[in-house]
C-alpha cells in the first residue's frame, strides 16, 4: 500500500526534510539532515549517527540500537479515517557526526485508498516527528492543498450523490407497486447510504482527528462492507429471475402482438360478414332479376370502393358472354366476348375469385387513358341455375355449365391490393346472387306457367262452350230434321200400308212390298241418324231379342237382288250348316250391318260376283291375326258369327282401309259416279259391331283386286226354341196375326179423355178386359190380383207415377202375382227410363201407341216379363 507520509517538522527553523513514500510496512528512510526548533528546548543528542536509508524492504538495524528509537503509535486525534488503525513506526536516524538527529517515521495503513495523512503528534522522549512527503527525495510540494481541496470537494459531491440516489430509490419503491424486488432496492439504498456516509466521514480525516471520528469511520466502513457484500450476494441470486422477467416480458409482448393481429383479423372478418349480410339483404329483398343484379353491383362497388364492376351474361347460344350490367356506364354497349377464352375457363373452373390481368378482354371496359396504372382486377363466376336443375333429386351439381362472369376492378393508381377477406366477400356475394337469380328465374317461370295456364283455361272454356253450343245446335237440328223426315216417311208407310189393303195385282203387290220395305228401311236409317248421335253419346242400347238368323240373310238377299241384277252381278249366299236358325241379338241392327256391307260390295263392283259366307267362329280360329283387338271367347250361351262378303270390284288401297271406317271421309280413288252414298254407313256399322262385342275389318289387295269385308259379332243362343212362337221380324212386314189376349185384365190410368178412349179402344181391339181410372187413389183401390198389366200415363198431373208404382209393388210384394206396370210417355229420355226401372216398372212405351206396338208390348210382358223396345 502506498501512503504518503508527511512529516511535519516541528521546528521553526528551516528544515530540510525528506519525503518518502513507502509501500511496505518496513521501510526506512534516508536520513536527512534536519534541524529542529528549540521551542521546547530541544536537546541535541549527542550521538550524531545516522543510518543509510535504503529502499524497500526491512532492514534491521544492527548495531544501531541505541540510536534507533522506534515505537508504535495508534492514530489519535483528528484525522481519523474510516475507523482504520494505523500504526506508526518511526525511526530516529542520526547522521554521523555532522548532522543532527533525523526522525522519520513509517506509517502502516491498511486503508484501501491512498490518502494523505497528516499526522502530528507530540513528540515524546525527545522524538520529533517529521512530516514526510511521498515519493523519492523531492522537495516538499506545496500543491498539497490544491489536491486536497479537490479531493475534499469531490468527496463532498460524492457524498451528496450517495445520499440522493437512495432518496430516489425510495421514491421509486414507494411508487412502483408491481416491482417484485423491492427489498433489493432497499439493500441498494442502504449500501449507497453507507458509502456516502463513509465518504462524508472521510471528509474529517484529512486533518488530525480524534478517536471518535476514527471510530465512526470504522463503523461506517464496517457497515458498508457488510451491506455491500450482502447486496453482491443477493444480486447474484436474483439475476436469473431478472433475466427471466425480461424473457417473460418479451414473450408477453409477442403474444400481445399476436392477439392484436388476430383481433385485427376477426374485426375485418366481422366487418366482411356485416357487409355480406347487408348485401344479401339488399339482393334478396327483390325478386326482379335486373334489380338484383344492379343492386349487387352497386353495393359491391360501395363496400369495396371499386372503380368498376361489371357482369357478363352468357348469350342464348351459349358461345359468347355479353356485357349486361356495369356500375358506371348506365347503358352498356353490347360487347360480346367468346366464352372459350383461357382466362374465362380458368375463372369458370373454380368457385374462388381469381385475379386476372387488367388487359384481358373482359376487364377492358373503358379505353385506357394511357397514363394511369389500372388497378387489380378480380373475376368470379356466378352459376346460373335453371328450373330444370331442381328436378333431380339431389342438389344440382354444378353440371349446369352456365355461368355469368362478374368482374371487379379496384381503383387505378391506388396502391390497394385485393385482400383475402375481400375475395371471400366477393365469392359469398356471387353465391348469393346465384341463389337470388335462380329464385327470380323460378318465379318468372311459375308466373309464365300460370299465365299460360290461365290462357289455356280461357281457351278451353271457350272451346267447351263452343262445343256445347255445337252439340245443342246439332241436337236441335237433328230433332227437327228427325221430325221433318219422319213425317213424310210415316205418310209413305201409312199410305203404302193402306194401299196394301186395296185390290192389287201380284206384281203391284210385290212392288208395293218392296216400296214398303224400302221406306221402312229408310225410316230405320233416319232413326239411325238419331242413333249415331246417341251412339256417340254412348246412350244407345241394343234391342236384344230372339230372331231368325236365316231369315235375316234371306231378307238381305231379297233386297239386294234387284239392284244386283241391274248391274248384272251374281250374288251367292253360303250359310254354314251348323249355323243356328234362331239367335238372340239386335236383329234390326244386324240387318243394317249386313245390308250396309253387302250394299257397299254391290255399289263398288261393276261386274263379277259377290259371295256372302257366314259361319260360326271355331275355337281354333279365335286368334285372328288381322283383328288383334278381337278376342272372341265362346261360351255356353253365346257364339260368334262371322260373315264374309267378298266382291270382285275396284278394291281399296291398303293404305286407305283405315279411313274407310271413319265417318264422312271419302276415298279420292273412287270414281266420281260411284260416290252415291255418304260415308256414314261403315262408321255406323263399326259402332254397332263394337256394341255387339265384335270386330269388322276390310281386306283388300289393292286396286282392281276386289275387296273382302269381314265382321264377327257375338250373338246369344236362345234358351228355348218354341216353334209356335214365331220370331219377330222388324217392322218390315205387317202381319195381322191374331194375337189377341182374351180376358187379359188391364188397368189404365189416364186423365185425358181422348187418349184414354183411344188406348181403351186399342186394348179392347186386342181383346183385353180394360178398366180405366183417372187418379192414383182410384188406381190403388181398384188394382187387384186379377189385373195383369197397369198402364200409367206419365203426364197425368197430380199423380206421382213412381209413387203409385211403388205402392202397387208394396201391395203385391207378398203375392207373386203382381201386375206388370208400364208407363206411357211422350218422351223417352234415358232419365225417365232409369227412374222407371228404379221404382220397379216393367217397361216404358212411347206415345202414340199403335196397335202393333201395344200388341208387342203385351207379348213382351207376357213372355219376358219386361218390355224390350221403347218405341
Amino acid at each position, binding site marked *: 500500500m502506498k501512503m504518503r507520509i508527511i512529516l511535519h517538522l516541528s521546528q521553526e527553523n528551516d528544515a530540510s526534510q525528506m519525503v518518502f513514500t513507502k509501500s511496505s510496512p518496513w521501510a526506512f528512510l534516508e536520513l536527512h539532515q534536519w534541524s529542529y526548533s528549540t521551542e521546547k528546548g530541544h536537546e541535541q543528542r549527542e550521538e550524531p549517527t545516522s543510518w543509510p536509508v535504503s529502499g524497500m524492504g526491512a532492514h534491521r538495524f544492527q548495531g544501531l540500537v541505541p540510536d534507533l528509537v522506534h515505537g508504535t503509535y495508534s492514530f489519535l486525534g483528528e484525522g481519523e479515517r474510516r475507523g482504520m488503525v494505523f500504526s506508526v513506526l518511526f525511526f530516529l536516524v542520526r547522521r554521523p557526526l555532522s548532522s543532527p538527529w533525523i526522525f522519520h517515521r513509517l506509517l502502516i495503513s491498511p486503508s484501501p485508498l491512498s490518502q494523505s495523512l497528516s499526522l502530528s503528534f507530540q513528540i515524546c522522549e525527545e522524538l520529533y516527528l517529521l512530516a514526510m512527503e511521498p515519493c523519492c527525495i523531492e522537495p516538499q510540494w506545496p500543491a498539497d492543498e490544491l489536491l486536497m481541496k479537490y479531493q475534499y470537494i469531490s468527496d463532498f459531491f460524492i457524498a451528496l450523490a450517495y445520499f440522493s440516489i437512495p432518496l430516489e430509490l425510495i421514491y421509486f419503491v414507494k411508487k412502483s407497486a408491481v416491482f417484485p424486488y423491492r427489498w433489493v432496492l432497499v439493500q441498494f439504498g442502504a449500501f449507497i447510504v453507507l458509502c456516502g456516509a463513509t465518504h462524508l466521514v472521510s471528509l474529517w480525516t484529512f486533518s488530525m482527528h480524534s478517536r471518535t471520528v476514527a471510530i465512526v469511520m470504522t463503523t461506517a466502513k464496517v457497515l458498508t462492507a457488510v451491506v455491500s457484500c450482502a447486496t453482491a450476494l443477493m444480486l447474484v441470486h436474483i439475476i436469473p429471475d431478472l433475466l427471466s422477467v425480461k424473457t417473460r416480458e418479451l414473450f408477453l409482448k409477442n403474444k400481445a402482438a399476436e392477439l392484436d393481429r388476430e383481433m385485427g383479423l376477426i374485426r375485418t372478418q366481422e366487418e366482411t360478414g356485416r357487409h355480406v349480410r347487408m348485401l344479401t339483404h339488399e339482393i334478396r329483398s327483390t325478386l326482379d332479376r335486373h334489380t338484383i343484379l344492379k343492386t349487387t353491383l352497386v353495393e359491391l362497388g360501395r363496400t369495396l370502393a371499386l372503380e368498376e364492376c361489371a357482369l357478363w351474361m352468357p348469350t342464348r347460344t351459349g358461345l359468347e358472354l355479353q356485357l349486361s350490367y356495369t356500375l358506371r356506364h348506365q347503358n352498356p354497349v353490347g360487347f360480346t366476348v367468346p366464352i372459350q377464352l383461357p382466362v374465362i375457363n380458368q375463372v369458370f373452373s373454380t368457385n374462388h375469385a381469381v385475379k386476372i390481368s387488367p388487359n384481358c378482354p373482359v376487364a377492358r371496359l373503358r379505353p385506357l387513358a394511357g397514363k394511369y396504372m389500372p388497378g387489380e382486377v378480380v373475376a368470379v363466376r356466378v352459376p346460373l341455375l335453371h328450373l330444370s336443375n331442381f328436378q333431380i333429386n339431389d342438389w344440382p351439381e354444378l353440371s349446369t355449365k352456365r355461368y355469368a362472369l362478374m368482374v371487379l376492378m379496384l381503383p387505378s393508381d391506388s396502391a390497394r391490393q385485393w385482400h383475402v377477406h375481400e375475395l371471400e366477400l366477393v365469392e359469398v356475394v356471387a353465391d348469393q346472387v346465384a341463389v337470388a337469380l335462380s329464385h327470380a328465374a323460378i318465379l318468372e317461370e311459375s308466373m309464365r306457367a300460370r299465365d299460360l295456364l290461365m290462357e289455356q283455361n280461357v281457351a278451353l272454356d271457350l272451346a267447351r262452350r263452343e262445343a256445347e253450343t255445337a252439340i245443342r245446335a246439332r241436337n236441335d237440328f237433328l230433332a227437327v230434321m228427325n221430325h221433318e223426315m219422319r213425317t213424310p216417311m210415316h205418310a209413305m208407310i*201409312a199410305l203404302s200400308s193402306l194401299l196394301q189393303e186395296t185390290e192389287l195385282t201380284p206384281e203391284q203387290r210385290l212392288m208395293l212390298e218392296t216400296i214398303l220395305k224400302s221406306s221402312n228401311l229408310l225410316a230405320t236409317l233416319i232413326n239411325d241418324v238419331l242413333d249415331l248421335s246417341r251412339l256417340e253419346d254412348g246412350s244407345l242400347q241394343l234391342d236384344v231379342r230372339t230372331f231368325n238368323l236365316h231369315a235375316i240373310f234371306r231378307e238381305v238377299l231379297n233386297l239386294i237382288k234387284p239392284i244386283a241384277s241391274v248391274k248384272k252381278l251374281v250374288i251367292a249366299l253360303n250359310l254354314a250348316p251348323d249355323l243356328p236358325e234362331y239367335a238372340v241379338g239386335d236383329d234390326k241392327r244386324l240387318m243394317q250391318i249386313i245390308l250396309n256391307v253387302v250394299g257397299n260390295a254391290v255399289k263398288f263392283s261393276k261386274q263379277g260376283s259377290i259371295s256372302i259366307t257366314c259361319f260360326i267362329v271355331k275355337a281354333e280360329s279365335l286368334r285372328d291375326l288381322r283383328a288383334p283387338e278381337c278376342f272372341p271367347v265362346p261360351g255356353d250361351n253365346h257364339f260368334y258369327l262371322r260373315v264374309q262378303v267378298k266382291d270382285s270390284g275396284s278394291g281399296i288401297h291398303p293404305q286407305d282401309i283405315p279411313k274407310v271406317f271413319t265417318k264422312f271421309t271419302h276415298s279420292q280413288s273412287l270414281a266420281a259416279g260411284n260416290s252415291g252414298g255418304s260415308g256414314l254407313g261403315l262408321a255406323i256399322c263399326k259402332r254397332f259391331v263394337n256394341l255387339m262385342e265384335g270386330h269388322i275389318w276390310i281386306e283388300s289387295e289393292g286396286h282392281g283386286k276386289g275387296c273382302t269385308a269381314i265382321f264377327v259379332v257375338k250373338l246369344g243362343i236362345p234358351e228355348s226354341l218354341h216353334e209356335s212362337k214365331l220370331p219377330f221380324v222388324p217392322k218390315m212386314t205387317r202381319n195381322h196375326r191374331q194375337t189377341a189376349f182374351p180376358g187379359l185384365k188391364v188397368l189404365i190410368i189416364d186423365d185425358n179423355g181422348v187418349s184414354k178412349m183411344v188406348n181403351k*179402344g*186399342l186394348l*179392347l181391339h186386342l181383346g183385353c178386359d180394360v178398366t180405366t181410372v183417372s187418379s192414383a187413389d182410384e188406381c190403388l183401390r181398384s188394382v187387384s190380383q186379377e189385373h195383369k198389366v197397369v198402364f200409367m200415363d206419365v203426364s197425368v198431373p197430380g199423380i206421382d207415377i213412381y209413387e203409385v208404382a211403388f205402392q202397387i209393388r208394396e201391395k203385391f210384394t207378398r203375392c207373386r202375382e203382381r201386375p206388370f206396370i208400364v208407363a206411357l210417355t211422350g218422351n223417352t229420355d234415358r232419365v225417365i227410363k232409369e227412374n222407371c226401372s228404379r221404382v220397379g216398372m216393367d217397361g216404358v212405351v212411347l206415345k202414340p201407341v199403335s196397335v202393333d206396338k201395344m200388341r208387342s208390348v203385351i207379348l213382351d210382358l207376357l213372355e219376358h216379363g219386361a218390355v224390350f223396345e221403347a218405341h
Partner: protein
Amino acid sequence: MDGVAQLKKRLADYTTSLYDEGYLDDQFVQLQQLQDESNPEFVVEVVSLFFQDSQRLLSELAKALEQQSVDFRKVDAYVHQLKGSSSSIGAQRVQRACISFRNYCDDQNIEGCLKCLQQLKNEYSLMKNKLETLFKLEQQLLEAGG
C-alpha cells in the same frame, strides 16, 4: 157402281190430301184400325169426344189468359191436355200448335201465348171442318153401299 167408285176415289183423295197437308198422321190410321165389328163407331166417337174436350179446353185457355196475373202453370196444364188429346187421334197440326204454345208458356210470354191461342183455335176449327167433311164423305159412301 161408278158413283161408289167415284165416291171412293174422292174419299181416298181427300184422305190423302189430309195426310199430305199434315192434318192427320199415322195415329189416325191406328184409330181406324181399331174400328171393327165390335166397335163400329169408334173413330167417330173418339173424334167427337176430342171436339168436346178441345172446345172446353180452348175456352178455359182464353179465360185463363185474360186474367190480370196469368197462372202459367194452369195454362200449361190445359195445353198439355190438348196436346195429349190431339196426338191420340193424330191431329198433327193441332198437336204442333200445342207444342209451340207450350214453349211460349215456358217463357211466360203472354203475347206469344195469345198469338198461339189464336193459332190453336184456327187449327182446331180447320181440323174440325176437315174431319167433319171426312165423316160426311164416309157416310155418303156407306149410304151409297161401298
